[in-house]
C-alpha cells in the first residue's frame, strides 16, 4: 500500500513572467486520498495538467505509475482518470452515448464496453437516466457522470479538479461518499479543492498550496499542529469580565482571538477547559459557554495564509 504512484520533483511551470507552479515536490502513495488545497490561482490545476501530461512543465520531472507523462502519455492516461473543473459533456448525446465515446477512445474492447458502462452508471446511480440527453442533467448528475467515466475506464488513479464546486450540500455529500468508496476499493484519488471541510472529510493527506508552492504536506492533524502550534481550540463565551486578559495568563495558552458576539477563541497545547473556566469565574465573569473542538482545516488555512502574508510583508 505504500508504493508511490505519483512522484513529482522540482516541478515548475512558468507562463511568461508569472510562475504558476514553483519547484513542487509531491509523493502520492497507492490507495490514499490526497488533497491539493489552496485558493484559486495557486497552481493546483496547472499541477494536475502537468501530472496528466496535458501541459509541459518548464522544468522538473513527473512520474505517474513509473511512466513519464510527456514521453508515454498514452500509458499514463490509460491508467489515470481525470475529472476536470466544471466538466462538460456532449449535450445532444445521452449519458450512455457520452460514456461509450470515451470508452471507445480509451480502448476498452467492444465485448466488455456495454457491460462496464452499465455497471458504472449503476454505481453512480444514473442507471435510470442513462438514456436521457445530458442536456437535461443537473450539475450534480454531470459530476457523477464524470465519476462513472472514471469507473468505466477502470482507472487506478483518479484526479479530480474541484469535484464539488458549485454543488448543493446534498450532492456534495453524495459525491464525497462515492469518492470515499472508490478509495476503499483501492483507487488512488488526488483531488483539488478550496473547500476545506470537504477535503478534511475525505483526505488522508493534504498539500497546502500557496503561489505555486506546496507549503505544507501531511495529514490534517499534523498540519494543524504545525500551523497552529496546538491542536486544541477552546471557545469561551462569558460576560462581565475581560475574558481575554483573564485567560491569557494560563500556562499552555498559545493565543487568544476575540470572536464576533463577545466570545474568544483560545488555542492551547492541551485540554485547558477546567483552567479557563476557573480563570473566567475568578475574574468575576459569568461563564455562558465553553467548548472545545479539534481545529478544522479552515482554521489551519486562514492561519497559514495570514502568517505567510505577514512573513512576506516583513
Amino acid at each position, binding site marked *: 500500500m505504500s508504493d508511490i504512484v505519483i512522484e513529482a520533483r522540482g516541478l515548475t511551470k512558468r507562463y511568461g513572467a508569472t510562475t504558476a507552479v514553483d519547484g513542487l515536490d509531491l509523493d502520492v502513495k497507492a490507495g490514499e486520498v490526497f488533497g491539493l488545497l489552496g485558493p484559486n490561482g495557486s497552481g493546483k490545476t496547472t499541477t494536475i495538467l502537468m501530472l496528466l501530461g496535458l501541459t509541459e512543465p518548464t522544468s522538473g520531472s513527473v512520474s505517474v505509475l513509473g511512466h513519464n507523462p510527456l514521453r508515454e502519455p*498514452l500509458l499514463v*492516461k490509460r491508467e489515470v482518470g481525470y475529472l476536470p473543473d466544471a466538466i462538460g459533456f456532449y449535450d*445532444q448525446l445521452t449519458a450512455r452515448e457520452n460514456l461509450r*465515446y470515451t470508452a*471507445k*477512445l480509451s480502448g476498452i474492447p467492444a465485448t466488455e464496453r456495454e457491460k462496464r458502462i452499465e455497471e458504472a452508471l449503476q454505481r453512480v446511480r444514473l442507471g435510470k437516466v442513462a438514456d436521457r440527453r445530458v442536456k437535461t442533467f443537473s450539475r450534480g448528475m454531470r459530476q457523477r457522470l464524470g465519476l462513472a467515466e472514471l469507473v468505466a475506464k477502470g482507472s487506478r488513479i483518479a484526479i479530480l479538479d474541484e469535484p464539488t464546486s458549485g454543488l448543493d450540500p446534498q450532492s456534495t455529500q453524495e459525491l464525497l461518499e462515492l469518492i470515499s468508496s472508490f478509495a476503499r476499493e483501492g483507487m488512488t484519488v488526488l483531488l483539488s479543492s478550496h473547500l476545506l471541510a470537504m477535503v478534511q472529510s475525505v483526505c488522508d493527506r493534504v498539500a497546502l498550496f500557496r503561489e505555486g508552492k506546496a507549503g505544507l504536506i501531511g495529514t490534517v492533524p499534523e498540519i494543524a499542529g504545525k500551523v497552529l502550534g496546538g491542536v486544541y481550540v477552546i471557545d469561551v463565551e462569558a460576560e462581565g469580565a475581560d475574558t481575554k486578559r483573564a485567560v491569557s495568563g494560563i500556562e499552555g495558552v498559545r493565543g487568544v482571538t476575540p470572536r464576533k458576539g463577545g466570545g474568544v477563541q483560545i488555542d492551547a497545547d492541551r485540554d485547558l477547559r477546567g483552567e479557563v473556566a476557573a480563570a473566567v469565574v475568578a475574574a468575576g465573569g459569568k461563564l455562558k459557554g465553553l467548548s472545545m473542538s479539534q481545529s478544522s482545516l479552515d482554521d489551519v488555512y486562514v492561519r497559514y495564509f495570514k502568517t505567510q502574508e505577514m512573513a512576506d510583508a516583513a
Partner: protein
Amino acid sequence: MQRKGSALSGMSTIAWKEAADHFSSARFHFVMLLVLLTAFGGVYGAIGQIKNTIGQDPFLFLRLLTTAKQPVPSFVAFLGFMLPLVSIALAFDAVNGEYGRRTMSRILSQPIYRDALLFGKFVGGMIVLTISLLTLWLLVTGLGILTLGLPPSGEEIARGLCFLVACLAYAGVWLALSLFLSTIFRQAATSALAALALWLVFSIFWGMIAHALTVALAPIDPTDPMTLVNAVELQTGLARISPNTLFSETASALLNPQTRSLGLVFINQLEDAIPGAPLPFSQSALLIWPQLSGMVAAMLLIFTAAYVTFQRQEVRA
C-alpha cells in the same frame, strides 16, 4: 523528445463520431437543404435549355451541369459558391466548440494524442462531404436520366467522377481553413464570421482585387505588346490564389471537353487545331493537374497551420 504510441489511435472513433454529429445536426441539414435546392434549380434550368439541342451534342450529361439559363446560374457555378459554405458550417466551431462545451480537457485526458483529435475532426468532415457530394452527384445523374431519357456515356461518368474529386479537394481547402480559424479564435462566432468574410472575399471580390493589383503592378504600355501579355499572366496568377478560381477552372476543363487551355493561347499555337473539337479525357485531366494539385497543397498547408497552432495551445480554457 520521442513520444510512445501511435498518434492516430482513437482517430477513427473521433472521425465517425464527428460525422454522426454532423449528420444529425440542424445546422448541416439546413445548409444541405440550401445546396440541394440551388442544385436542382440549376439543373432544371439547364434541362429546359438543352432540350432544344438534344441529338447534336455528344456530352449532354455534362451540359446538364454547366449550362446556365438566365437568371439561374449553372449547377457548377452554384457548387463553387455553396461548397465553401457547407465546409464552413462543418468546421467553424470544431476546436473552439470543444473548449466552449468544456469537453476538451476531458477528451484529451483519454489515452489519445491531440493529433488524433484534429485529424479525426478533419476526416470526419471529409466523410460527411464525400457522402453528401456523392449523393448529390447520383441525384443529379438520376435526374438527367429521367428527364433526358439517355444514360451517360463512359467518358461522361469518368469526367463526372473526376469532377467529384475536384469538388472534394475544393471543399477540403475550406474545411481546413475553417478548422484553422476555429483553432485560433476561442469564440465560435468570431471564427464563423472570419470564415464567412474570407468566403465573400474569395468568391465575390477576388476578381476585382486581382484586377486592381494588376493595374497597379503591371501597367500596360500600348506600344509594347509584351506588357499586355505580362499583365494578363499576372492577373491570372493572382486570381489563382483564390481556391474558387482553381475550382472553376478545373470544372470548366473537366466538364467542357472543348476547353484546350486555361490561360493565354496565341494564334500560332492554334495552328492545325480543329476549333470546337473535344479533348480526350486524359488530356483534360492533364490540363487540370496543376489546379487540382494546387487545391490539395493549399488544403495540406492550411491544415498544417491548424495542426501547429493546436499542438501549441494550452488545454486549460
